């Protein structure tokens, strides 16, 4: 048994907006953005937020493991609820035990690396650390171009780690290069050159030096540098620290964008997914200070790598060049969906509480008399009628098969057409479900689907949202 990173996982939403489409739409007022108008950025679908992305990254990280998670730390600056445990919903969706501690961590772009730095320095129970951010930006802003949406997760604790901690340090320093007030939708950012010269060049080196000293290593010993920052920031850090500029990891800027709290975690996940044994990785978070964490991969890395990480999500894309579609699914413009869109989605919270495992963990029931699986779980078995015989069994990890479906242009959907249908699962279970991430013409009877945790409905009158599982396309062979 050793302490370290037991597993890792990542997630990038499939929608990718061509940055050229942003420029085409906003270039008339912001001609200076032309230089950024290359590649794509990831965009969370209308039913994705930092919470749902965290669930997906957490599933990727925990898949196939038997580890008992004792703590969930959900780091983000964009959690949907200010007073409701977001990490508690994630814990239920991941079917962690009721004794798993849950904490929501925010406050800066380095919320995730700060927790990682703390975990590196002091052993606790098994902690699932998830970084997830879904930052929106003002139309026509630099951030609209450069931001992306994504998440990543690390399981840290005792076991057979794929990487161990060699040293870590954190420095806090209130350089406000960008900020978002608690009641604001968008970030307010100052010129990047200032952050580069006064922040990356002066704050980061202090954290890096302390971490290297604690690890008893020199800058030249580091094989990979994961830095949350631009290429300009990376050059500045290399110059100030003596780190090798060629060893900075892919920032994913071209295909995903800057995912805020999740960014350093996602880049680390990406490095871990292809690292060999004995490689030293320096992870640097930045934002009103800096975190530096040095880890070294272990023999278990090749076992953990199988299928895990961002690659499969980076390959599975739905590219779009529709700027108004992007604004609409991010709720930045309100399309006229007619009176049907006025539907009242009030949630009866006492019902939702009684049925919390049915909904959040997609807990069905398996009849112990006739072995029929069913959702929702009920008093009487749908097949044999036996009473109180159903043992809870989640269907969230099951592969389903489309029995029938439609593409509905009448019913209200924030991303028309509204696709839904009957889906069959193993041992007799059939459920009618709302699909997501499919385009019109993509679904066929007989197709296999996987389930993803998404926003089911928004209640805009009461500022509430509810979640459920939806069929989505299978991930590619990389999975």
């Amino acid at each position, binding site marked *: 048994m050793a302490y370290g990173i037991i597993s890792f996982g990542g997630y990038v939403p499939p929608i990718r907006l061509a940055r050229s489409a942003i420029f085409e739409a906003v270039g008339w007022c912001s001609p200076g953005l032309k230089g950024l108008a290359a590649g794509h950025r990831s965009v969370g679908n209308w039913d994705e937020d930092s919470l749902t992305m965290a669930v997906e990254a957490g599933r990727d990280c925990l898949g196939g493991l038997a580890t008992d998670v004792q703590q969930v730390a959900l780091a983000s600056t964009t959690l949907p609820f200010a007073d409701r445990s977001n990490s508690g919903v994630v814990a239920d969706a991941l079917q962690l035990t009721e004794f798993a501690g849950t904490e929501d961590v925010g406050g800066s772009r380095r919320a995730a690396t700060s927790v990682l730095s703390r975990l590196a320095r002091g052993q606790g129970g098994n902690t699932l650390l998830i970084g997830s951010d879904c930052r929106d930006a003002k139309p026509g802003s630099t951030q609209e171009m450069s931001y992306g949406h994504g998440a990543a997760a690390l399981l840290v604790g005792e076991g057979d780690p794929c990487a161990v901690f060699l040293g870590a340090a954190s420095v806090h320093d209130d350089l406000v290069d960008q900020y978002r007030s608690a009641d604001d939708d968008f970030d307010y950012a100052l010129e990047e050159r200032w952050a580069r010269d006064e922040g990356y060049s002066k704050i980061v080196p202090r954290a890096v030096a302390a971490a290297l000293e604690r690890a008893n290593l020199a800058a030249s010993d580091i094989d990979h540098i994961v830095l949350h920052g631009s290429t300009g920031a990376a050059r500045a850090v290399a110059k100030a620290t003596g780190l090798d500029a060629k060893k900075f990891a892919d920032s994913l800027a071209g295909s995903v964008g800057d995912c805020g709290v999740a960014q350093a975690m996602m880049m680390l996940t990406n490095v871990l997914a292809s690292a060999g044994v004995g490689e030293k990785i320096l992870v640097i978070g930045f934002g009103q200070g800096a975190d530096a964490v040095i880890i070294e991969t272990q023999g278990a890395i090749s076992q953990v790598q199988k299928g895990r990480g961002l690659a499969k999500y980076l390959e599975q894309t739905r590219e779009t060049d529709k700027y108004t579609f992007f604004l609409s699914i991010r709720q930045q413009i309100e399309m006229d969906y007619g009176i049907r869109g006025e539907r009242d989605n009030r949630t009866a919270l006492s019902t939702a509480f009684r049925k919390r495992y049915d909904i959040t963990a997609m807990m069905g029931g398996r009849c112990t008399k006739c072995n029929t699986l069913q959702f929702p779980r009920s008093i009487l078995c749908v097949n044999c009628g036996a009473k109180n015989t159903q043992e809870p069994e989640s269907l969230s990890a099951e592969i389903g098969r489309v029995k029938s479906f439609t593409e509905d242009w009448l019913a209200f959907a924030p991303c028309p057409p509204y696709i*839904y249908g009957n889906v069959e699962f193993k041992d*007799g279970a059939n459920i009618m479900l709302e699909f997501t991430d499919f385009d019109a013409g993509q679904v066929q009877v007989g197709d296999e689907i996987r389930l993803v945790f998404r926003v089911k409905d928004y209640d805009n009158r009461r500022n509430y949202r509810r979640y459920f599982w939806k069929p989505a396309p299978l991930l590619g062979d990389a999975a």
Partner: protein
Amino acid sequence: MAKGIKDKVAIIGMGCTRFGERWDCGPEELMNESFAEAIADAGIEKEDIEMAWLGLYSQEHSAGKSGLPLSVGLRLPNIPVTRVENMCATGTEALRGAAYAVAAGACDMAMALGVEKLKDTGYGGLPERSKGTFDDLWLPNQSAPGSFAQLASAYINKHKKDLSELKRAMAHVSVKSHANGALNEKAHLRREITEDQALNAPMIANPLGLYDCCGVSDGSACAIVTSVEKAKEMGFKDFVTIKAMQLAPSNGFELQNTGWDGSYLHTTRVASERAYKEAGITKPREEVNMMEVHDCFSVTELVVMEDLHIAEEGNAINDILDGTFDRDGKVPCQVDGGLKCFGHPIGASGLRMAYEMYSQLLGRSGERQIENPKIGLTHNLGGQPNRNVASVSIFGLNGA
């Protein structure tokens, strides 16, 4: 062993409003209109009616809950009025209540009245509604066309048909109903359409285009029922009796179990088999002379032909394209224009279907009269294919 209600209950008067966008009418006007026709037809006074059943579904959008809208709207003399609501079978359920009261001998004369005012919602299609606090948490917020459209994907998959074949038969269903509706002054949609129009219409819920969907309208229909003995006493000679009324709701099987393949309507099969038994019918295709089925969507009518055991399983497309269900075909279907042309004021539809059977059996259907019908069948399907309420009723001339 109970024998059912065959030939125990006579329908001695019926009324039906013009269905349509009755912007100048509320439920009160619609109820009074169908009621006035029904009692005039029966030759009775309001005071002769001892019990009443009101079929009304979307009460929030029109008349309000309880039996009060009927009692107040018609100024009934404080007789018992029960409001029933069982999705799209609501109108038929009102009739079943009234018929059972008469058959049981609880009263001599009862009334069933169905009404729905849909066009106060401000948008097309049926009103948005909650499915209950738990189901809203997980079931899709589906529309009616989207629910039924799924029959198409499962049907062609099961029977190895081309979508284009199915679409042609669906188009034929709608072309036929429009041709019938054009002859009916009470229908909402009274224009004939062509197969091309149906095939090239805007998509509503794939593969259902605009003309695959029934209209949305306001309307009311009413029936006065009494015992066969009483009908004879009153001097009726050739009158219509109820041969069977059966209802089969889902129990979760279709929605929750893979035993259902999505291509047929389980409850319609159950209800029709029970109804044929109650009516003593053994060869439905030969013995049923006409039908009004729940053609909320063209594909529903197509599939229902098999589930009612009128077409052989997998053969509905051929039967339809052969004209079997056209007005001059072997088993005419939707002779009045169906839901397709009447629209679907939910509480009224089942009674509107009964009205057409009643009129045809009595030879009063004018231009669209079928030659000497003896037995007619009505069918309602409420809900969606994977969770629904199906009713099958059989009417005929007394003694048939």
